[in-house]
C-alpha cells in the first residue's frame, strides 16, 4: 500500500493543473481544488485506527541508492495529527482564499502555490528519510517565499519574502549538514533506523555539532529568538497565507522536527538546556511584544512566535507530561490561530484597515465574524469549555513537574499566558465593541466563503473541548507515544477538580484581564526600554546582508577590475598554485627515460629561438618584434625537420612567411608600442610567467618520463596503405581516417577568412583602412 506517496504526489499534480482548471472553471474552481485536501483529510482520518496503538506504517522507494537515499514515508501518531491539521485547515483555506481574492487577476497562482505548499508540507510530515525530509523542507521555504511575495509589486512584500527565505534557507542548510553528520555516524538516513541507533549517536563526539546544526534548522523555521524577526515581516503575505503557513502549519515544521528528532537526539543535557532556553525566551518575548502592537495582524504574529516558543519549551523539557501538553497545544494553537487570522483577514477585507485604533463596534455589521472571534479568543485565553483550556491545564502541569527550574518556568509561563489572555481580550473586544469608527470601507458581513473557515475551526475547538476523549483521545495518545515511546495512554478530561493548577489558571486569567483593562495606561507609561528597541535581532540580519554585499563588491573590485592583464594574472596564478601543489603531493620524478646525448645543433636552435622570443618580448619596435617572431617560427620548423616531420616543417615555413608578410603589410602603420608600467609590475609579471613556464616544463618532463605505449599510432602505421592506399601516414590520417575533422578545420579557416574580409571592408567604408 502506498497511500502516503500517492497523497504527496497528487498534491504536486494538483498544483500543476490548478492554473488551467481556474481558467476553465472560473470561480467554481475552489470546489474542485478543495477535493485534494479534503480527500487527504478523510483518508488520514480513516487510517487513524491502524496507528492508534503505536503502529507505524512505512512506504519506501529507492531514489538515489548509491547515496543511501530513498523516498520513504511513514505514518505514525504525530504525522497523522500534523497531516490532518495541514490537510484540514488547507481545505478551509482554499475556500477562504477563493473569497478573499475574489476577482483577483492572479488567483490561479495563489491556488497553485497553496497546493504546492500543501504537498511539500505533507512531504515533510510523512518523510521517513532525512534527505527526503530536507528536500520537502526546502520546498516549503520556497513556496513560503513565493506566497509572502504574492503582491510582488510592493517593495515590503519582496523584502519580507526574501528575508524569510534567507533566514529559513540558511537554517535549512545547517540542518542538512546536521543530517549528513547523523547519517555518517548512524550509517543510515532512515529515521526508523536512526532511532534504533540513538545511543550511538548521542554518545558520539560529533553529537553537539549535529544537535546544534539540526536545532538551527528547527529554530529558524519556527521563528525562535533570535531568528523570530522574519515571521512578523512575513505578514506582508495575503491573509489566507498568513493564516495557513505562518500560524497553523509551516512555522510548526520546526517544532515537528524537534518532536521527530527527540527519540534520536533528545534526552541529553545539551538538548534540555538548549531547546528549553530558546523556547522559554521566545515564549515570553513573543507575548511581551505582541501586547504592544497596534496592527491586528502583527499582534497575532507575535502571539504565534510566543506559542511556538511554548511548544519548543515543552519539547525541550521532554517529560511525558510535557509531550502530552505539546501534542495537544500543537492542535489547539492551529485551530484558534488559524481562525483568528482568517477573522482578521475578513475585518481587513470588509473595513479596509486592521489597525486596532481605527476599528470598533463591528459586532452589528459583522455578527458571525464577531462570534467566531470571541469564541476563538476564549480558546486562546485558555478558558473552559474550549480545547484551549485543556491544553493550558496540561501546560501548567508540565511546568509544575518540570525536572529543572520549575519555579522560573511557572513564573515565566504565568506571565506569558496572562499577556496572551490580555491579547485575546484585545482581539475579541477591540474590533467588535465600543463605538463604531470611520473605516476606509463601509463594513458589512464577510461572504460565506470567508466565515466558513474560521467558524468551522472555532466550532471544532468547542466540540473537541466538550467531547475530547471520544473524538480526539486515540489520535492524541498515538501522537504522544510516537514522540515519547515510554508514555502511557491517559484519558483527556475537561475538568480535573480543584487543585493548584486550576488556581494558577484562575490567577492567570485575572492578571490577563487586568492587563487588558490597563493596556492604554500601561502603554502610555511603560514603553519598552530604549536599549531593547535598539537591540533588535533584525539589525543583525541587515548588517549581515549589507556586509555580504560590500564584501562581494570588494572581491569583485580586486579580481575583476576590468583590466585584461589582471585577469590573465589571476588565472595564471591560480593554475600555477594548484599545479605546483599537486606536484608536491605527487613526489619526485624519475628521469631515467631522459638519458641520452645532446646534439650541438639542437642547442643552437633552442638558443636562437629563445633569443627571438626574448627580443619579441623586449623590443618596442614593431619591425623587430615581427622579425623576432619569425625567427621563433622558423626555428620550430627546423626542429620539425630534424625530428622526422617534413610535412610540419613545410607547413610551418609557409605559414611563418605568410604571417610575417601579413604583419608587415597591415601593422606597419600602427602607433609605436608603448608599455607604460613600473619595473615592479614587470618583475611581478615576469615571476608569475616564469612560474607558469616552469610548471609546463615539469609537466612535460613527467609526461615523457613514463614509457610510451600507444595503440593508436601502430594502428595507423599498419592500416595506412592497406586500408587507405596512402604511404605518407600523416597525410592519410588527416585526409582519410580523420577526414571529417579536417573538413571542420577547413570550415574554421573559411569562417576566419570571411571575418577578415568583413573587418577589412568595414574599415575601408569608414575611410580609415
Amino acid at each position, binding site marked *: 500500500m502506498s497511500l502516503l506517496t500517492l497523497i504527496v504526489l497528487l498534491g504536486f499534480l494538483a498544483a500543476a493543473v490548478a492554473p488551467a482548471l481556474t481558467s476553465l472553471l472560473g470561480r467554481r474552481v475552489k470546489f474542485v481544488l478543495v477535493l485534494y485536501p479534503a480527500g487527504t483529510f478523510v483518508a488520514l482520518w480513516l487510517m487513524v485506527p491502524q496507528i492508534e496503538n503505536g503502529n507505524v506504517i512505512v512506504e519506501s522507494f529507492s531514489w538515489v541508492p548509491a547515496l543511501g537515499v530513498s523516498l520513504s514515508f511513514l505514518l505514525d501518531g504525530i504525522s497523522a495529527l500534523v497531516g490532518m491539521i495541514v490537510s484540514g485547515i488547507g481545505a478551509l483555506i482554499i475556500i477562504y482564499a477563493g473569497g478573499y481574492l475574489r476577482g483577483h487577476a492572479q488567483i490561479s497562482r495563489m491556488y497553485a502555490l497553496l497546493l504546492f505548499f500543501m504537498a511539500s508540507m505533507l512531504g515533510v510530515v510523512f518523510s521517513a528519510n532525512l534527505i527526503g525530509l530536507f528536500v520537502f523542507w526546502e520546498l516549503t521555504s520556497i513556496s513560503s517565499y513565493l506566497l509572502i511575495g504574492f503582491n510582488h509589486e510592493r517593495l515590503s512584500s519582496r523584502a519580507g519574502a526574501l528575508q524569510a527565505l534567507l533566514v529559513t534557507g540558511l537554517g535549512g542548510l545547517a540542518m542538512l549538514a546536521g543530517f549528513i553528520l547523523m547519517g555518517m555516524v548512524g550509517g543510515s538516513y532512515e529515521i526508523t533506523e536512526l532511532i534504533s541507533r540513538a545511543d550511538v549517536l548521542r554518545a558520539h563526539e560529533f553529537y553537539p555539532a549535529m544537535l546544534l546544526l539540526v536545532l538551527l534548522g528547527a529554530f529558524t523555521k519556527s521563528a525562535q529568538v533570535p531568528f523570530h524577526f522574519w515571521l512578523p515581516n512575513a505578514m506582508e503575505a495575503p491573509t489566507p497565507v498568513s493564516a495557513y503557513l505562518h500560524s497553523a502549519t509551516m512555522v510548526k515544521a520546526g517544532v515537528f522536527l524537534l518532536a521527530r528528532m527527540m527519540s534520536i537526539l533528545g534526552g541529553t543535557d545539551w538538548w534540555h538546556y538548549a531547546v528549553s532556553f530558546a523556547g522559554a525566551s521566545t515564549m515570553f518575548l513573543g507575548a511581551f511584544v505582541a501586547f504592544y502592537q497596534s496592527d491586528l495582524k502583527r499582534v497575532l504574529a507575535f502571539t504565534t512566535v510566543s506559542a511556538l516558543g511554548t511548544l519548543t519549551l515543552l519539547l525541550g523539557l521532554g517529560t511525558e507530561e510535557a509531550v502530552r501538553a505539546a501534542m495537544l497545544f500543537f492542535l489547539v494553537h492551529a485551530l484558534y490561530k488559524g481562525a483568528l487570522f482568517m477573522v482578521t483577514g475578513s475585518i481587513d477585507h470588509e473595513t479596509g484597515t486592521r489597525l486596532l485604533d481605527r476599528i470598533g463596534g463591528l459586532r452589528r455589521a459583522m455578527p458571525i465574524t464577531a462570534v467566531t472571534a470571541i469564541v476563538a479568543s476564549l480558546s486562546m485565553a485558555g478558558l473552559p469549555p474550549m480545547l484551549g483550556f485543556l491544553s493550558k491545564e496540561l501546560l501548567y502541569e508540565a511546568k509544575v513537574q518540570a525536572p529543572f527550574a520549575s519555579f522560573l518556568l511557572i513564573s515565566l509561563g504565568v506571565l506569558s499566558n496572562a499577556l496572551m489572555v490580555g491579547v485575546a481580550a484585545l482581539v475579541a473586544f477591540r474590533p467588535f465593541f465600543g463605538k463604531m469608527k470611520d473605516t476606509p470601507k463601509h463594513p458589512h458581513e464577510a461572504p460565506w466563503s470567508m466565515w466558513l473557515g474560521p467558524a468551522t475551526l472555532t466550532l471544532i475547538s468547542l466540540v473537541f473541548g466538550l467531547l475530547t476523549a471520544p473524538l480526539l483521545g486515540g489520535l492524541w495518545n498515538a501522537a504522544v507515544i510516537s514522540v515519547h515511546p515510554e508514555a502511557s495512554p491517559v484519558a483527556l478530561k475537561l475538568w480535573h477538580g480543584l487543585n493548584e493548577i486550576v488556581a494558577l489558571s484562575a490567577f492567570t486569567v485575572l492578571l490577563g484581564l487586568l492587563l487588558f483593562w490597563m493596556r492604554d495606561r500601561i502603554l502610555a507609561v511603560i514603553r519598552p526600554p530604549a536599549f531593547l528597541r535598539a537591540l533588535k535581532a533584525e539589525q543583525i540580519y541587515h548588517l549581515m546582508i549589507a556586509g555580504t554585499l560590500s564584501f562581494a563588491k570588494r572581491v569583485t573590485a580586486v579580481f575583476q577590475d576590468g583590466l585584461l592583464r589582471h585577469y590573465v594574472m589571476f588565472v595564471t596564478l591560480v593554475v600555477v598554485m594548484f599545479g605546483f601543489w599537486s606536484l608536491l603531493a605527487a613526489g619526485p620524478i624519475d628521469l631515467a627515460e631522459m638519458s641520452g646525448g645532446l646534439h650541438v645543433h639542437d642547442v643552437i636552435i633552442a638558443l636562437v629561438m629563445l633569443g627571438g622570443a626574448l627580443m619579441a618580448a623586449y623590443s618596442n619596435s614593431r619591425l623587430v618584434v615581427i622579425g623576432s617572431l619569425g625567427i621563433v*617560427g622558423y626555428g*620550430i620548423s627546423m626542429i620539425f625537420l630534424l625530428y622526422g*616531420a617534413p610535412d610540419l616543417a613545410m607547413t610551418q615555413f609557409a605559414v611563418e612567411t605568410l604571417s610575417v608578410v601579413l604583419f608587415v603589410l597591415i601593422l606597419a602603420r600602427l602607433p609605436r608600442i608603448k608599455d607604460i608600467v613600473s619595473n615592479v609590475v614587470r618583475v611581478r609579471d615576469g615571476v608569475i*610567467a616564469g612560474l607558469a*613556464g*616552469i610548471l609546463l616544463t615539469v609537466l612535460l618532463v613527467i609526461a615523457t618520463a613514463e614509457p610510451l605505449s600507444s595503440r593508436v599510432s601502430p594502428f595507423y602505421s599498419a592500416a595506412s596503405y592497406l586500408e587507405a592506399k596512402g604511404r605518407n601516414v*600523416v597525410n592519410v590520417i588527416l585526409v582519410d581516417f580523420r577526414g571529417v575533422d579536417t573538413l571542420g578545420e577547413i570550415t574554421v579557416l573559411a569562417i576566419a577568412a570571411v571575418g577578415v574580409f568583413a573587418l577589412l571592408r568595414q574599415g575601408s567604408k569608414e575611410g580609415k583602412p
Partner: protein
Amino acid sequence: MTGLLFAALAGALFAIGIYLLMRRSILKLVIGLLLIGHAANLSIFTAGRLDSPIPPIMTQDAIQLNAPTADPLPQALILTAIVIGFGLQAFLIVLVRRIVGRNGVDDTDEMTSTDIVDRGQEDGK
C-alpha cells in the same frame, strides 16, 4: 636529454607568451598568443618522443610502416594546430588593426568598455 632541452624551450616560450599577455600593448598580446601556440605545438611534439629522425613515410614498395620512424599521430595533431593557428592569427591581426584604427589606442587598459570612448570628452575632464 633532447626531450629535456625541448621541454625547457617549450616552458620558456610559454612563460614569455604569458608575460606578453599581461602587457598593455595589444600587439604584444597578439605576439604572446602566437608564442603560446608555438609552445603548445612543441609540447605535443616533445611528448610524442623524439626517438627517430626518419619521417613516417613508407618506401615505394612497402605496405606497412616499419619501425623505427617518428610517430605519425602527434604530427597529424600539430599539422591541424598550425593551420588553425594561422587562421586565428590572420583574424587577430586584422582585428587589432581595426580596433587601433578606430579607437586610436593600442592600450588594453583603455578597452574596458564595449561602448566607443569619446576621447575628446575624457581629455577634457
